[in-house]
């Protein structure tokens, strides 16, 4: 079996308390569940269980266009193979205390043809390894101060690469201080959703640009273990939950918490075959495009 890396950021517990960045919320509790026996009125069957309550934008999750009320895709109908695809890992570890990640830093590391020669639905995902994962749980303040991806880089991704989704081992692709303002809105009504549809998000512009183009954003990955010489692999980022709607009106799910694993591209004789298969894939999908 090949080496498999778990890219899911752990939910860190400090006794019973979930240690997460402040604007997010999560609760975990241990409960005793009992079933009443109707006849005798006694509780005979008992077992322990946990209840977890958390924001879907917490931990490793995929931001969906519905986050900003763009309903171009029904999250309930995304096929499972969408979440299983090859991914390019861009290593951009550095000190992110001040400057955001720019296009110049990554342009040489991205092979444009690997994206443009495939139809959009078959393109690989693009993962950024910034090194911010090391602060997750241990120094949430530093983790929250990720300066984000520059606008030029976001636009390059949105209009040139157009991958189905991008991933990052940071809290967000935008400057994260803005997250705190989100907690101001507590009640969601129709008027609020319409307002969301109308406005452009300067605060979360990166999200806005990508989600408008149906490029999903896989945030909060844990990429510490991925070696620096690994630049490609198979990403499996399956949502934890599968939703379906029994009525016509479906609930607007805005993010999908997921379990992400990564299998690096093999380096042995399989590698040559995979390369050839990739070429064949480009040619075949070019024919039926």
């Amino acid at each position, binding site marked *: 079996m090949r080496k498999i890396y778990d890219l899911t950021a752990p939910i860190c517990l400090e006794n019973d308390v979930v240690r997460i960045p402040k604007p997010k919320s999560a609760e975990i509790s241990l409960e005793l569940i009992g079933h009443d026996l109707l006849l005798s009125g006694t509780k005979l069957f008992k077992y322990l269980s946990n209840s977890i309550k958390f924001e879907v934008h917490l931990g490793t999750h995929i931001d969906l266009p519905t986050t900003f009320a763009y309903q171009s895709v029904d999250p309930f109908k995304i096929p499972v193979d969408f979440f299983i695809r090859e991914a390019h890992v861009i290593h951009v570890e550095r000190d992110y205390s001040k400057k955001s990640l720019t296009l110049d830093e990554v342009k040489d590391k991205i092979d444009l043809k690997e994206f443009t*020669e495939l139809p959009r639905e078959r393109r690989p995902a693009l993962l950024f390894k910034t090194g911010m994962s090391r602060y997750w749980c241990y120094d949430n303040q530093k983790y929250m101060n990720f300066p984000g991806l520059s606008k030029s880089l976001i636009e390059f991704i949105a209009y040139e690469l157009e991958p189905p989704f991008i991933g990052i081992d940071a809290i967000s692709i935008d400057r994260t201080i803005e997250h705190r303002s989100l907690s101001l809105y507590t009640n969601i009504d129709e008027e609020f959703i319409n307002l969301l549809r109308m406005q452009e998000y300067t605060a979360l512009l990166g999200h806005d640009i990508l989600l408008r183009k149906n490029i999903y954003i896989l945030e909060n990955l844990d990429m510490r273990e991925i070696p620096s010489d690994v630049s490609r692999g*198979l990403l499996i980022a399956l949502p934890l939950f599968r939703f379906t709607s029994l009525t016509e009106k479906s609930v607007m799910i805005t993010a999908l918490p997921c379990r992400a694993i990564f299998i690096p591209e093999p380096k042995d*004789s*399989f590698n040559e075959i*995979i390369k050839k298969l990739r070429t064949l*894939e480009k040619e*075949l999908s070019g*024919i039926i495009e």
Partner: protein
Amino acid sequence: MTNLKLVSKRSKRLFTYFKALGNPIRFLIIYEMLDGRPYTKNEIVDYVSVLTEVPKTTVDRHFRTLLKYGIVRTAGKSARDGEKGRKPLLYVLSVDSLAFYANLFTYLLEGITDKRAKLIEKSLDDVKALLNIVDDVKLKLYLASHDVGDEIISNLSKALDSCVPIFSLVREAVRPRTFVADCENALELLNKISANQVILRKISADKMRELLYVAHIESNTPPEKLGPLLGIVYEAKLAEHHDLWDMVGTARHNDPATILKTLTDNIKCTEAEASYLISLANNIIRYLSSSITNQDLIRLILTF
């Protein structure tokens, strides 16, 4: 049997039309003249005779039959002198027969086009199925441990080596790639073409010479710079032939494969060379895109 006396004049004419088509030689003559242009008898007889390998006298006899039926008529004299110094007669399909055959062939060819579309659609379904197989194999290779035998890998590699160029050609014809814009891409493309026997068969030596020449004119690269790239290294030859057309013509090996191989081996992607190479690659893409027919595609897909 129907009494022909009772059949209307119009129906009799219809019988004649179909009777005329009843022989493959006459069928081809009519098909050739369907564009409504006037032809000399020699043009038609030569064409059909070459196509069918039937003696000219036989074709001539059938042509005269069509004249007798009134399906072909004379249309004045040719402006050019014929073989014997006289201006030969021109022939066209008569107005009513032209209308009849044009309608008939349109109807028949639409049927063929329709069938072809269905054939292509079926072929595309096969391509989709193949694409799913590619996905499966790729996924298995990621997940598989090292216990897959070398023989399987070797066979898979060979199979891919043989089919990738074929589908590459099909793709190029169906949906030409964006034209190349830099030297590396142009070089990559020419390398692929020079290694692909299927594509090379589509480019004759003369066509290659023409493509090289057009790129030379477009890129405005001096011949003395291109000579060495194309393997023409003798000073004397360069001095003797100032035009690339002549140079390629006198090159010892002027088959497309050797020319492209020499070119890609020698190129250093300097500014002048890059401009020439990009122009050449784009011209080849244009040529291949226009020269591959639907039949080629179907054959390529179905014979895979």
